[in-house]
């Protein structure tokens, strides 16, 4: 029912549409222009990157959002990540998409931990992360300049051993395109 397919050029227009929606960008660290040339440039950059991987989230064959590994650090065996669901109707899947992702990455990559950054005000996502076994690391005060105002950035981390120790969500396994 849920699968994750590699981000391809054919998805770029849809991704740009989602990524520039107010309800998606409001908690993003960066805001981007609705510019397909820049979008293609971004795609070329991440396609050649050895530290970033992007997938499209598909639910019943409908593309609904994007999930990514970012700043993969092979030396220290850690990564950060992000995801969003562009299609409002499917946002209620936001609680179970991460478990699919954690089960995949902790069994496929040699990560010791994954880190998350959550913008001030996005309390639902902090709550979800804590339910998934994260611990709160701290807060960068006034870390992001968003629409002329400095906002805080919450830092969280999930160790592989803590995810496995949780012994929950183990059945959330699905196809990830390599």
């Amino acid at each position, binding site marked *: 029912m849920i699968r994750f397919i590699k981000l391809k050029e054919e998805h770029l227009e849809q991704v740009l549409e989602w990524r520039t929606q107010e309800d998606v960008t409001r908690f993003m660290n960066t805001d981007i222009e609705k510019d397909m040339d820049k979008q293609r440039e971004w795609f070329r950059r991440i396609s050649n990157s050895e530290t970033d991987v992007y997938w499209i989230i598909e639910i019943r064959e409908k593309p609904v959002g994007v999930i990514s590994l970012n700043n993969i650090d092979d030396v220290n065996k850690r990564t950060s990540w992000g995801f969003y669901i562009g299609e409002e109707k499917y946002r*209620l*899947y936001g*609680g179970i998409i991460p478990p699919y992702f954690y089960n995949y990455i902790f069994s496929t990559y040699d990560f010791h931990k994954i880190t998350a950054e959550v913008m001030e005000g996005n309390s639902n996502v902090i709550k979800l992360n804590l339910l998934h076994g994260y611990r709160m690391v701290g807060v960068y005060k006034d870390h992001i300049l968003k629409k002329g105002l400095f906002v805080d950035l919450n830092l969280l981390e999930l160790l592989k051993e803590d995810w496995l120790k949780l012994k929950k969500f183990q059945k*959330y396994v699905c196809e990830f395109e390599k």
Partner: protein
Amino acid sequence: MNKLLLIINEMREEAGLESIESLEATMDLREDLTLDSFMLAELTVRIEDEFNVDIFEDGIVQKIGEIIAKIEGV
């Protein structure tokens, strides 16, 4: 389904909404219980946590009755 009612009321209270006294199978999650997408996302995790049930196994659910059926394995 006292536990489900408890979970929903905890979430409603955190969102500044009044508690409800009981759950009816016909209640719509969004319309009647005023749960938005983010609250529904949290609800799915809490249900998985408490009952070990994936409520989306067969698609999107809209009514309380669909969740109860999943929990009861109907």
